Every structure is written in structure tokens, then in C-alpha cells.
């Protein structure tokens, strides 16, 4: 660089060639760096993807394997024999369909109830000032910190006293105990991002507070509400211990249902269990595929202050 700027006699040619040479090597370096970072990024994606997908792959391989292959030791990554028997056997099991329906009913109602209640609570926490607000907020948060086993025994006793055991109600209410606090805090964060000016404008235009919440705030917070609902749905869908304890086999959901059906005293029917797990996870996967943009939007809402 110094020679090109201090030697006017050398004219533009050396300057250009140096520049070209310098520019070329810089570009090459940049290209190399880009390539390197792309390779690194793709490698990372592949490694993380393989790590994340390995259980799913193993689920699929086991579901497609005959029983004796599934128990091969050491296990084989690529099955030498494939069967669809484990999937066709599912169709013959009416009880599994019942568990699936129960799961759909209970997880959906849990999600809706959690979101509805959390909307009002979150809105109250976010937009109003009153004595005890912070304590209430922390109380809601603290309820997440109780071990589930403690809650379970208490809920069991309460539901037993009210004759609610073995009902959908018991399941929905018990699931709500752990889904609602999360929803409340998620929605409070989202309501915090909605400017008060909007509420004041609505008030000046004559909207009641009720109408302001339902017609102005709720549509704006819809992505967050959907995200909260999805979280609640998935937690309700996956719960094992509450569903096992509070419901009999008529009202039981998939997780205890699958365990009851396939995991026994002497052996576990792994291929059938894996096939069933794959099939029953489809509704959740489909729901996520359709709603994932709301999920991401809802999760990040409130993360940046305007």
C-alpha cells in the first residue's frame, strides 16, 4: 500500500495491478472465508439435525422391524428386513383409538381453557395497576415450582371428594394447573408490547373496556395466544402421570394408554409401541406445521421494547 501511494512516477499501471492483485486475493480470501463458514454452518446443521432426528429415525426403524430384528444385539442402523405388520396391528386396536380421541378432547380443552383464562389474567397483570398485583404474578409463577407428585396427591384427594375422578374434567383441570401459569406469563409479555395509546384511543372512541380487550387487544395478541395454546396443547398431550392417576381406562389419554398396552411385566413390545408412537404423533406434527409461524412469532413477541 505504501509504495502505491508514495511513487507518482510509477503511474496508474502498477497501482491498478496492485489493486487488482490485492482485490483479487481479498475476494478469494472472502470467498474462501464464506465457503468455510458455509461448510461450518452446514456441518453444524447436519450434526444438530442428525442428533435431533436420530431418535425419530430409530423410532421408524424399530417400528418397521419384525420383533426378532428389533432385539438384535448389537443393534443394526439399517434394518435387513422390513414389515408393516406393526402398523396394521394398530388398526385392529379399538382401545388405542379411544385413547387418541381422549387425548384430542382433553388436550384441546386444556389449551382453550388455558388461553382464555390466561388472556384475562395476563391482561390484568399487564395493563392494570392494583395492590397485590406483583404478589399475584409471583404466586402464579411459584405454582410452577411445586413438584408434580405433590400436586397430584392433592388433586387426587380433591377430585375424589367432588366425585370428579375418572372424568375429562379432572384431566383438564389438572393439566391446567401446569399449563396456565406459563400461558399467563407468555400473554402478559405480549400484552406489554401493545401500546397504551391504542387502548386510550379506543376509550376516546367510546369502546368499553370489554370491547377494547376483545376487538382491539385480542386480535393483536392472536399469534401469542396461538403459541400459548400450542404449548398448553402439547403439555396436555404429553402428560403421563396425571392422566394415569386421575382417569380410568375409559378416559385415559395416549401416554398412559400406550404404556399400559405395550409395556408389560416381562417384556415391552417395542416395535408395536414405536409404530403406535409414530402414528399418534402425526396430529401434533401437523398442528405444528400449520401453526409454527405463530409459534415463533408468539415466542419472540415482547422481546424487543419499542
Amino acid at each position, binding site marked *: 500500500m505504501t509504495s502505491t501511494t508514495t511513487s507518482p512516477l510509477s503511474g496508474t499501471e502498477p497501482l491498478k495491478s496492485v489493486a487488482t492483485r490485492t482485490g483479487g486475493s481479498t475476494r478469494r480470501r472472502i470467498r474462501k472465508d464464506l465457503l468455510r463458514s458455509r461448510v461450518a454452518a452446514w456441518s453444524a446443521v447436519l450434526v444438530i439435525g442428525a442428533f435431533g432426528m436420530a431418535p425419530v429415525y430409530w423410532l421408524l426403524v424399530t417400528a418397521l422391524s419384525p420383533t426378532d430384528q428389533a432385539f438384535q444385539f448389537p443393534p443394526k442402523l439399517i434394518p435387513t428386513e422390513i414389515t408393516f405388520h406393526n402398523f396394521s396391528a394398530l388398526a385392529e386396536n379399538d382401545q388405542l383409538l379411544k385413547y387418541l380421541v381422549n387425548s384430542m378432547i382433553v388436550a384441546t380443552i386444556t389449551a382453550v381453557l388455558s388461553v*382464555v383464562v390466561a388472556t384475562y*389474567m395476563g391482561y390484568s397483570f399487564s395493563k392494570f395497576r392494583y395492590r397485590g398485583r406483583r404478589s399475584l404474578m409471583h404466586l402464579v409463577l411459584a405454582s410452577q415450582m411445586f413438584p408434580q407428585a405433590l400436586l397430584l*396427591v392433592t388433586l387426587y384427594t380433591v377430585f*375424589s371428594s367432588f366425585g370428579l*375422578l375418572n372424568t375429562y*374434567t379432572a384431566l383438564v383441570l389438572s393439566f391446567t394447573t401446569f399449563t396456565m401459569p406459563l400461558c399467563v406469563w407468555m400473554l402478559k409479555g405480549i400484552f406489554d408490547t401493545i401500546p397504551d395509546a391504542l387502548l386510550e384511543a379506543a376509550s376516546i372512541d367510546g369502546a368499553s373496556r370489554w370491547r377494547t380487550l376483545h376487538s382491539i387487544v385480542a386480535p393483536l395478541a392472536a399469534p401469542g395466544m396461538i403459541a400459548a395454546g400450542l404449548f398448553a396443547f402439547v403439555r396436555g398431550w404429553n402428560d403421563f402421570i396425571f392422566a*394415569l392417576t386421575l382417569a380410568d381406562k375409559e378416559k385415559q389419554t395416549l401416554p398412559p394408554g400406550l404404556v*399400559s398396552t405395550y409395556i*408389560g411385566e416381562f417384556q415391552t413390545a417395542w416395535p408395536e409401541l414405536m409404530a403406535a408412537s409414530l402414528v399418534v404423533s402425526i396430529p401434533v406434527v401437523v398442528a405444528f406445521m400449520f401453526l409454527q409461524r405463530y409459534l415463533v412469532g408468539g415466542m419472540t413477541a415482547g422481546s424487543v421494547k419499542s
Partner: protein
Amino acid sequence: MTTSGISRRNALRMFGIGALGVAGAGALGACAPSGGSTTSGGGDTKSKNFDFSSWSLNEATAKPAIEKIIAAWEKAEKSKIRTVSYPYNEYLSQLTLKLGGGETTGAVHLDMAWLGTVAQMGKLADLGSVAGKGGYTDVALNSGKFDGTQYGLPWNTGSIGLIANAKLLKKAGIKEHPTTIEEFEATLRELKGLGGGIVPYAAATKVAQLKDIFPWMQTFGCTLVDGDKVTIGDDASIDALTWYKKLHDAKLIAADVDRFDARALFGQGKAAFYDDAIIGKGVTSAQSKDKTLAEAMQPVPRPVLRAGDSPRALLWGGVIAVVKGKGQDAATEFALHTTSDRATTSQYFADLALPPSTTAGLADPKVAQDTFTTEWTEKITKTATGSPFWRFAQNAQIEEAVAKQVQAALVGKASPKDAMKQAGKEVADLVKR
């Protein structure tokens, strides 16, 4: 944080709507269809209708056989039995919770290891007056007793013992089953010599199944408990663990093996010995590609320390207990019929290969002609005993505490002596609770 200037009253109203939502849902939910919840709270002991709880009612292989027994009883007695089931691994916790809450009535199927825990709740009926009518073997009858009281009628009585693969033994030139520890170790070394990645003895080395070491500790002379005094940590227990570690270090047993792994290894002809319940023959051979494996499976009495000692084995099986209160009398009759009626038990054996608990049942041609079962009963179950820890409600924690220390010794984190001393201390603390 933003404010809207809304009054405290309105704010609380909003919050109240939220709270009422939860309560309202509960009230609405009360209209939901009931699953038929029942409460005992005493109830009519003469009622012909009762509940029957069993984990086996979930299991595809056992369910039809039990339903057949129930249907026959309902038809003969014009009664109605409501079946209740939980997965095996959750059964005890669910049952104790529901028994405590008065939700469980009638007859309950129990693993004999759980009898002490459940009996201590004070909800089970004393079946001593009917037990004599069943014709049970002494070993079986004792498995249903806790603290001298007959709380359970034995349904299936077997044991957990050693199973050998005769084909592998033959391949290694071994003509007779080893009878002493010394012979056993020599046999394992010969089997190791076969090569091909063979694990001579697929013994438990994972915490989940390391309780299998208890019979070996007893073989070396450790009583585990003497009265209320825990003896784990004595010389015999240290000798047992030292020997177990020697097998581990010499690769005569393998690391990270539980019952499922052992069955898989044995099923593929890669293990010559493993520990299992009598039902292991059916389970393991069903998983194996080798369709002749079942014929090669042989029950082996556990080798002893000195010739002439009694082989040690853990008693294993199920009993039917009866909850005091609603349907108690009919449930008792049902339990007696299910566990001792000769036709019923022999058919149950034919369906599930679970050995009956009565002398007549064992003499039934269906059972007597099954060489594996008769040999098992004669060689293993005959001298099997229950675990002295079963009487403690903390049985599961006790087993885990010992298992963790045994594993620590196997992987070299503790010496056998330190591990056993520590295990003994932890078990003593648990026993005192």
C-alpha cells in the same frame, strides 16, 4: 411497564374473570360423563359385585386368559366384576394411592414383593381362614404371608434363577452344570474361550437389575438382614462383591446389562447363562430367531460356596389379596377359586406357562409333563426364599441403594469393601424410617 389508568376495581374484575374461569370450568366439568368412580369407605361386604385390580389385565398375552376366568366366574355366580389395571411399573404407587383414598375395593393382584408394603396400610383382609382350603404348597403359602398373617392367596409361585443354553455348554465341552462357585467360574472361563464375543454369564450390571446380586451375597453367607440389623457390609457381602467384580474385570460378565439386554444376548446365542424368572423361557425364546432355543434352555440351581450348601434363589410370583369392605366375601371366594381350582389353574398354566401354587395344580398332567417347569420347581423354587427387605416399605430404595454401590465397585469408583460398608449404612438408615 405501561398503565392505562383503569381503576383498581376494574382491574380486579378482569383478574376475577380469569379466576372464575377456572372455577367455572370445574363446575361445567361436573356435567361430564362419569367413568364410574367408586368409593369403598367400608361398604357392603356381602355384595356379589366387586373390583379386580391386576396389571396383567393390560398385557396382550395375559389379558384373554384372565378375562376368561372372570367371565366364567360372573356367569356362575351371577355377579359383576369391574376390572382395574395400571402398568406394572406404576402399579404399586397407583394402588397404594387409591387404596389410601378408598377407591380400590375387591380383589387385588400383587407381586409377592409388594405384599408387605400394601399389608402395612391396614386395608387388606386376613385370608387365614380360607387359605387352608386351597391345598397350596408351603413355599407358596408363605409367599402370601406378612408378619404371620395370610394376606394373600398365592396365584403363581416361581423363582428367579439361572438359565443355561445347553447348546453353548455342549460347544464348550461342558457336560454337567457347575455346582460350586469355583466350578462355575471355571465353566465361564471355558465358555469365554469359545470366542466370538460370547458373554459367558449375562449377569445384571445395570442399577435397574443389580438386585440380582442379593442371592449371590446370600450364597457367600450374608443374611442381608438379621432381625432388624442390616448385615450388608459384613465379610460375606464383601467377598461376594469382590468375586462379582472379578468376573466383571475378567469379562466373564459384561458391563451395562439389564434383564432386557441379557435376554437379547441369550436369545442370539451370545450368552450361556443369565438370570430370569421361570417365564423367561417363553419371553426370551419368542424374541429369538433361533426357533430351537427353547429346547436348549435349562434351569440351573445357583452354584453354592461349599458342596452341600442349599442353592439360593429369589422367590417370585403373584398373590391375590382382598380389600376389607365392599364385596369382600365374594372377592375372597373369587381369589380362592382363581388360585386353587384345578381346572382353572391348569388352563392358566396352559395359556401363560405360569406355574400353579397348589400341590394338585403342580401334579396336573398339563404341568407335570412340562419338563422345564417341573425341573425349575424342583431345582430352583424348592429352596427359593423371599427377600428379607420385602417387609420394609422402603424396599425399592433399599435395592437401589445397594445397586448403586455395587455398580460403583464394578466400575472401580469404590473398593468392594467401601461399597458394601456404604451400602450397609444407607440400608440401615432406610430401614429405620
